[in-house]
C-alpha cells in the first residue's frame, strides 16, 4: 500500500517526465485503435453494401467463348438461352433462379429536358420482390410501368408517377414510374441504383430478345451456396465451359479477408509507435531507478523485500500504462468518430462491438507494453546490492 503511494507521488513529482512517457503510450493507443476502428468500419460498410447480394450465385455466359449452346448451334452473342436457363433453374431448385436482361438506353425525363443514357434491366415481375426492395411506391406489374433506382431518382428528380420516355424522342414508348428501389450499393448481380427496371415482356418486345444476360440464383440456405454453384457448373460445363458461376458469398469472404489483412497491417504499423513508447517507458523507468538507488538501498536495509521494491516500480509502469491507455482510448474514440465521419460519411459503424473492441485492444496493448517495459527496471531495482545502493551518491 505504501509502495503504491510512493509510486504515485514519484510520478507526480516528476510530472513533465511522466506526462511525456504517457504521451508516447497515448499516441501508440490512438494509432492502433484508430486504425482498427477505421479498418473495421470499412469492412462493415462494404459488408452492408454487399449484404443484399451475399446470398446469390451469379451465372453469366463464359467470357471468351464466341459461341455456345447445345450441339454448337447456340447464339453467337454472349447470352444464356432459354433452354440453358431452364437447366440452371432445374439444378438450382428449390432455390429461385432469376433471369436478368440488361441493356443501355437513351431516355428523356420530361418535356424540354436533355436525353440521358441509363442502364435498363428487364426482369419478370414475379421475380422482382425476391431481388429488389422498394423504398417508395409499388412493384410494377404491367408493361407500361417501371421502377427506378434511388440514385437515379435523386439525380433526375424522379418521383413515383413521373414519366420516362424511352429511346430517341420516345420512340420506344413512355413508362410511368411505379416505385423507387432501395439503395443497394455495389452489387454482383444487378446494380439498380442508377438504373431503370422494366418488365421482361416489355424488354423482349422492344429489344427483340429471347435470351438472358445473366441468371441470379437466390440461395435460401447459405450453407448450400457452394453446393448450388458446383451443381450448376457440373450441369452446364460438362463438355465446354459455357457459363461462369460466381458464388457471391465466397467473393465477399475474400473481400473481407483482404480488408482484415489491411486492418491488421495498418494496426501493426500503429504497434510500432507503441513499441517506441515502450522504449521510452523503459528509458524513463531506468532513469527513475538510477536516481533512486540510494533510496532503494535504505528501503532494503530497513526491511523492504525485493518483491516490494519491484512492486513499487511496477506500480509506476502500471499507472503510466493505465492512465496513458485510458486517455488514448478516449482520444481513439473521438479520432475514430472524426475519421469515420470524414471518410465513410457515417459513424454508425463506430458503435458496434466489433469496432469498439479495437479501443479495448489498443488499451490492453498499451498497458501490457508498459508492464513489460517496467519489468526489467523493477527487477534491476529489486536486485541491487543493498550495501552498494546505500553507498551510492
Amino acid at each position, binding site marked *: *500500500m*505504501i509502495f503504491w503511494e510512493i509510486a504515485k507521488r514519484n510520478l507526480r513529482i516528476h510530472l513533465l517526465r511522466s506526462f511525456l512517457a504517457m504521451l508516447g503510450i497515448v499516441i501508440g493507443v490512438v494509432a492502433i485503435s484508430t486504425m482498427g476502428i477505421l479498418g473495421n468500419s470499412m469492412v462493415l460498410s462494404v459488408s452492408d453494401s454487399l449484404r443484399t447480394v451475399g446470398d446469390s450465385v451469379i451465372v453469366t455466359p463464359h467470357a471468351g467463348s464466341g459461341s455456345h449452346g447445345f450441339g454448337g448451334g447456340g447464339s453467337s452473342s454472349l447470352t444464356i438461352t432459354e433452354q440453358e436457363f431452364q437447366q440452371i433453374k432445374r439444378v438450382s431448385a428449390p432455390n429461385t433462379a432469376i433471369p436478368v436482361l440488361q441493356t443501355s438506353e437513351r431516355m428523356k425525363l420530361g418535356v424540354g429536358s436533355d436525353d440521358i443514357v441509363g442502364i435498363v434491366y428487364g426482369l419478370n415481375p414475379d421475380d422482382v420482390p425476391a431481388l429488389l426492395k422498394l423504398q417508395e411506391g409499388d412493384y410494377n406489374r404491367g408493361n407500361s410501368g417501371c421502377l427506378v433506382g434511388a440514385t437515379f431518382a435523386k439525380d433526375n428528380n424522379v418521383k413515383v408517377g413521373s414519366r420516362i420516355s424511352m429511346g430517341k424522342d420516345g420512340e420506344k414508348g413512355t413508362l410511368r414510374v411505379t416505385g423507387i428501389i432501395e439503395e443497394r450499393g455495389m452489387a454482383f448481380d444487378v446494380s439498380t441504383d442508377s438504373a431503370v427496371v422494366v418488365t421482361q415482356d416489355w424488354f423482349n418486345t422492344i429489344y427483340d430478345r429471347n435470351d438472358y444476360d445473366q441468371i441470379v440464383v437466390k440461395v435460401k440456405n447459405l450453407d448450400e451456396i457452394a453446393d448450388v454453384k458446383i451443381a450448376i457448373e457440373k450441369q452446364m460445363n460438362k463438355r465446354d465451359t459455357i457459363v461462369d458461376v460466381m458464388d457471391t458469398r465466397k467473393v465477399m469472404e475474400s473481400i473481407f479477408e483482404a480488408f482484415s489483412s489491411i486492418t491488421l497491417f495498418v494496426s501493426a504499423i500503429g504497434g510500432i509507435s507503441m513499441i517506441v513508447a515502450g522504449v521510452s517507458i523503459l528509458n524513463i523507468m531506468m532513469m527513475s531507478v538510477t536516481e533512486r538507488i540510494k533510496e532503494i538501498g535504505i528501503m532494503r*536495509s530497513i*526491511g523492504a523485500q*525485493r518483491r516490494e521494491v519491484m512492486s513499487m516500480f511496477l506500480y509506476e509502469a502500471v499507472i503510466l500504462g493505465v492512465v496513458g491507455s485510458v486517455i488514448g482510448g478516449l482520444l481513439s474514440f473521438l479520432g475514430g468518430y472524426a475519421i469515420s465521419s470524414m471518410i465513410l460519411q457515417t459513424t454508425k459503424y463506430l458503435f458496434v462491438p466489433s469496432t469498439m473492441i479495437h479501443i479495448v485492444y489498443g488499451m490492453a496493448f498499451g498497458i501490457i507494453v508498459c508492464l513489460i517495459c517496467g519489468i526489467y527496471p523493477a527487477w534491476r531495482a529489486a536486485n541491487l546490492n543493498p550495501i552498494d545502493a*546505500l553507498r551510492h551518491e
Partner: protein
Amino acid sequence: MNDEAVMVFRDVVKVYPLPAGDVTALDGVSFQVNRGEFISVMGPSGSGKSTLLNMMGCLDMPTSGDIWISGTRIKDMSDTELTSLRRDRIGFIFQYFNLFPLLNIIENVTFPMMLKTGKGVDPERGKEVLRAVQLDDKLFTHTPTELSGGQQQRVAVARALINNPDILLCDEPTGNLDSKTGAGIMDLMTDLHRKGTTIIMVTHDPHIAEYSQRTIQIADGRIVS
C-alpha cells in the same frame, strides 16, 4: 551463547576478492553484545568498521565464521529471511538520516511497521514513538526537507525504534550534525539505553564514544581492545 546475548560474532573473516589480490577486511573477529548494552565501535578509516557494521546489519555475509543475531544463526539464511530479520530485530540509524523525501514524517517513521504488518500508516503508534524522541507534534505532517538536521535524525531514531528492535545499529549518528545538536541526539541515545535498548554505535569521534558503556577498537580487521 547465553540468553542475554543479542549478537554474537565468532571467528568472523571477510575477504574481498579483488583483481589486484584478496583484501581481508575482517580477520577472525569474535565478540558478544548482551541485551541492554551500549557499545561503540571505533577505528581508523579502512580498519573494517563498515564491513563489521554491514555484517551486524545482516547486509553482508562472512567468508568464514559464524554470526548469531537474537539467537538466530544468519549463515545460510535466504535473502527474504535476512530482510525480515533486519526489519523485525534491527533498527538502523544512518549518518545522513536517510529519510524518504516523498513521505511525510509520520509515514517515514511508520514505514518499517507497514513493511512488517502489510497495513497502512498507524498514526497513533507513529506519534507515540515521535513523542518518545521528543519531536514537536506540529512537525508530524511535514516532509523531511522541512526539518533541521537534528530533527531529521530524531525522526530516523523514531523510525529505527518503531518495530521494537532488539538492537539499534547506529552509523556515525552525529557525523552530520553540529556539536550541540549531536549532543542532543546522544542524550536521546543515552535515554533510550537507560530504558533498556541495546545500542551498537560505529563512530570515529572519541567524545561520542564516551556515551557508551564499552568500546570495541578495531584495526586492520582485528579487534585490538
